[in-house]
């Protein structure tokens, strides 16, 4: 499974939606994922890809990880997987 598909599956599960309802330009807010849901999604992503995501819930904008849309999350995960598996 592609990274993108797995990330969408995780986000969809968190949002209680079908993966087909999650588009790349969806924001977490639109999907109804709150801060606790975000932290849980990041945990699931870390477990799925065996990576560590640099995310601090206190300072999302300062974390080296862009959560502004599904696309930015997927891009961030792809980068982390490439770096941490290298």
């Amino acid at each position, binding site marked *: 499974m592609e990274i993108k598909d797995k990330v969408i599956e995780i986000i969809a599960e968190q949002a209680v939606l079908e993966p087909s309802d999650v588009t790349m330009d969806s924001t977490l807010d639109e999907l109804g994922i*709150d*801060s606790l849901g975000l932290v849980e999604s*990041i*945990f699931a992503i870390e477990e799925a890809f065996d990576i560590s995501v640099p995310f*601090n819930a206190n300072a999302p904008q300062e974390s080296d990880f862009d959560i502004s849309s599904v696309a930015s999350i997927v891009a961030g995960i792809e980068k982390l997987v490439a770096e941490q598996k290298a």
Partner: protein
Amino acid sequence: MKRVVITGAGTINALGANVAETLEAMREGRSGISELDIRDVDRLAIKIGGQVKEYEPEARFNRQELALYDRFTQFTLLAAREAIAQSGLKFDGELAARSGVVLGNSGGGMTTLDENYRSVYEEGKNRVHPFVVPKLMNNAAASHVSMEFNLKGPSFTVSTACASSNHAMAQAFQMVHGGLTPVMIAGGSESMLCFGGVKAWEGLRVMSKDGCRPFSANRNGMVQGEGAGIFVFEELEHAKARGAEIHAEVAGFAMSSDAADIVMPSKNGASRAIAGALQDARINATEVGYINAHGTGTAANDKTESAAVADVFGAHADRLMISSTKSMHGHLIGGTGAVELLACIMALRDGIVAPTINYEEPDPECALDVVPNEAREAKVDVALSNAFAFGGLNAVLALKRFA
């Protein structure tokens, strides 16, 4: 209703091994936060905390006692010894039969749990020490205080996460206030700076890797602490009759529940607890000179708390002082309100307001006088102590200068 005063105080925390050392550190704006010295710290992402250092349990307790006392119980007993010795009270006869101890605590014997889980899961042992249960239970500390000081009245432990100590002290206050007993021992303790304890907090991603900076725009999370704070709450006439030294008056309290979210704070819940404490103590908002903030250093708490204070106090919010001593001793979770009450006593009795240290950048969402970085001399007549817990359970205490 009876008036309630504080006639004894004791503590051990990252700032000091007793009240005098702790208040000195608060006056000097010293930080007690340092590199954690615990097993497997290299596997933690969070490696700092307000850990009690230079502490040797073997120097304070004998072998039999240590078999029964988790670290949170040890801290509690040391603080209780200091508080009760200072009060000059001896519990026997009728006084012993009526007096009790109510303590706040969240995690119980986390170190004991951690060590014993290691032994059965990691090391594969099939046998644990026979005292694991009496050592880790949340009420162990209250029970040992009752045993050591012969307190035979109402004793129990209150567990409301970060508000545990404030809820506990409110209960003890209410008992003395209502005439149930002339004396109660109250406060709380916590010790969860062990691998499992810190790892659990890491999961929530609200911890700072580099320091606790409450109300500062560049804050990035909380830092955990450990220790205990214990007080003697005594009925005023009882205290006067024996010529006891009085440190402050406990004037009232209020509790509220957000009924909203398991971790996100609510301005409304916090405001209701603050306003309720003023009402219970029959204090005008304009009389409040100092608030010891919950001030965790998380993005969410500090702005919500600031908004709640602005709501309750209106224009007076800009004239009162509010500081978070968590910047120095860390967040003691279930014990935090107890150690923070010391800052209220210092403000009322000594006229010195503890600072919020590590304050670097103003945050427009926390635009209050947070007593940045340096303690301040001021005559304070009324002080509040805020505690807003995970789970949306809030407890605010109101104290008055005793004159």
